């Protein structure tokens, strides 16, 4: 190989390999190779010792957390840096061939372990018994589709994936359209709607348990806003979360509250992207605001509506935290699929059933994703 720098620009964005450095004496090469082995070994031992310390429950928490932060944040930089050093020490021939794998390697390893392996493994576990000892065929799937509570969970989940996106996207579109007409305060109004996005599902559950709080007559004042309003109107307080099947709606309200801001902000960006000339021209031609909304705004932002709706459908399909925190789902009849999965796996102690529910969830997500990708492709080809 010549040592001159490559002069012709490479095709596409891919870059030419490094110019090979001048030859080194053999002794130094050996030393470097030794270093390439020793340094990672020492680093691995040091890392192991630190992680062992982090496991120590008696140590000072501040110290543990501090060290964890340093290890976590610095460790990943160090990993890439040291791998790059190791590549530098390789013979010139292999150096440029190996370097891309230093860059993508960690991502590929993590993905194989954390996503590819689990999919295969979950499918296997779903065919085995409670302790994952013996194969039981489709027994677990039979359970999933016959158990009374599971069927209720599926019915409820169907409600979630229809109602939550529908309501959240509708409010989002209307709010974004109206906010666009505000002369002042648009940013503040949008921030306040968006704010619940930053709150955890558990936090939101507390916020809404407080709203729904119920005390029967004779057990003190109702401090929940909804029941206080009911009493203020001279009606009896209602145990909102016990009213089957309406309590499902009460839980969906929480998710709508959290997700509308997301829909609104994305749709608002799409609405602002509609060229003013089109809207102005329609108005000059005498179109009413409603007609502009119906015949210009909606068709233009429709692709965005589809994307936002898909996102919400998938989120609603996987909803877990809200139901889990708001009380005994089975007693209240508010089970959903993801919540059942966690119950069976961690509380019901039946790996097979938990895994089978996970597989069903996976299969339910795929059509939504395919539909989304199709829509996206169509859109691309129109452009």
């Amino acid at each position, binding site marked *: 190989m010549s040592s001159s720098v490559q002069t012709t620009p490479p095709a596409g964005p891919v870059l030419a390999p490094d110019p090979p450095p001048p030859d080194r004496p053999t002794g130094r090469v050996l030393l470097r190779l030794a270093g390439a082995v020793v340094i990672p070994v020492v680093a691995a031992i040091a890392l192991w010792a630190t992680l062992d310390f982090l496991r120590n429950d008696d140590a000072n928490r501040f110290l543990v957390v501090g060290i964890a932060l340093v290890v976590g944040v610095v460790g990943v930089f160090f990993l890439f840096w040291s791998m790059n050093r190791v590549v530098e020490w390789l013979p010139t021939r292999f150096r440029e061939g190996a370097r891309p794998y230093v*860059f993508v390697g960690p991502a590929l390893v993590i993905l194989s372990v954390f996503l590819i392996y689990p999919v295969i493994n979950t499918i296997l576990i779903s065919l085995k018994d409670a302790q994952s000892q013996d194969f039981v065929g489709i027994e677990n799937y039979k359970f999933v589709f016959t158990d009374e509570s599971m069927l209720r969970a599926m019915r409820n989940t169907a409600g979630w994936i229809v109602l939550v996106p529908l309501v959240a996207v509708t409010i989002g579109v209307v709010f974004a359209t109206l906010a666009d007409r505000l002369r002042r305060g648009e940013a503040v109004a949008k921030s306040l709607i968006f704010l619940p996005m930053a709150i955890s599902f558990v936090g939101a559950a507390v916020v809404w348990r407080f709203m729904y709080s119920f005390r029967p007559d004779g057990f003190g004042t109702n401090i929940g806003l909804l029941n206080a309003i009911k009493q203020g109107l001279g009606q009896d307080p209602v145990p909102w979360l016990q009213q089957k099947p309406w309590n499902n709606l009460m839980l969906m309200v929480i998710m709508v509250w959290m997700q509308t801001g997301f829909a609104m902000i994305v749709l608002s960006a799409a609405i602002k992207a509609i060229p003013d000339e089109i809207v102005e021209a329609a108005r000059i031609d005498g179109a009413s605001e409603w007609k502009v909304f119906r015949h210009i705004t909606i068709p233009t932002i429709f692709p965005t509506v589809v994307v936002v709706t898909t996102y919400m459908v998938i989120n609603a399909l996987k909803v877990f935290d809200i139901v889990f925190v708001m009380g005994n789902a089975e007693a209240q009849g508010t089970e959903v699929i993801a919540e059942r999965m966690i119950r069976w796996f961690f509380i019901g102690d039946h790996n097979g059933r938990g895994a089978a529910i996970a597989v069903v*969830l996976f299969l339910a997500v795929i059509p939504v994703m395919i539909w989304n990708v199709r829509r996206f492709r169509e859109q691309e080809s129109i452009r």
Partner: protein
Amino acid sequence: MTVVLETVPAPAPDAKAEKKSSWFVRITITVVVLLWTIPTLGVLISSLRPEELVNSSGWWTSLAHPFRGAEWTLENYRSALSNGGFGNAFLNSMAVAIPSTVIPVTVAAFAAYAFSWMDFRGRHVLFVLVVGLMVVPLQMALIPILRLYTGGATLGGVTLIPDFNLGGTYLGVWLAHTGFGLPLAVYLLRNYIGSLPSSIIESARIDGADHFTIFWRLIIPLSVPALAAFAIFQFLWVWNDLLIAYVFLGGSRQNRVLTIALADLVGSRGENWHLLTSAAFLSMALPLAVFFSLQRYFVRGLTAGSVKG
């Protein structure tokens, strides 16, 4: 789960100079904003009221006399932080959330650089595979990974992955969050890094910079907007996560993060509203601060790229 959003250009600045806001618009907006804000406001106010008042009267009654000293207290926060163990949980949440944000961003940035600017076999196939993994719901990954953490993996008696005993460790949670966040991160960052002008990178190559130097000195500084947008999203997601922390770190008093501590409090003292409200607000404080200070990046990232949930 992930969804691809189309790119939307920035709004024209003078778009609404001449628009009039009618009463109908203003009233509707105000009503919706009030409906959306009141639940959080109620929690904030209750968290600052003494226990007896919280339990005997609605939070709105305090609004009638906001300057009466007996109406307000910080005692709830004090007891939540010490007796409730929320101080410890706050530390744990930090120890989980910060590396769980930094690690995926770093790993994804390196991979995105390689996918856009380096030549190697299987580049396109691997990229499609990585992005395709966005379909896998993380619920599906929990069970196998937990078993991997506590027992390793064997195939026909051959140990593929040894037992690292990662259950209940920070490292285990970081890696899990990294794995679940990576597909989206790689996808987002590859879009951004791949669109940087090739001329600057080529001239750096001609000046003798190697890939590592280019990445570190050139790509990272240029990609700050994309890195920040993803980092904010990932941070909020990790901070607010209950499921992964519960499964991989556990619910012990020593290890639990804020969301778990809060969920425990809901379970054990569902009617102690003075504690619940202050604890809930403690768990919201940091994400709200992050959200409001970095809102610009966050919203831009949401509307210009993609979104995970």
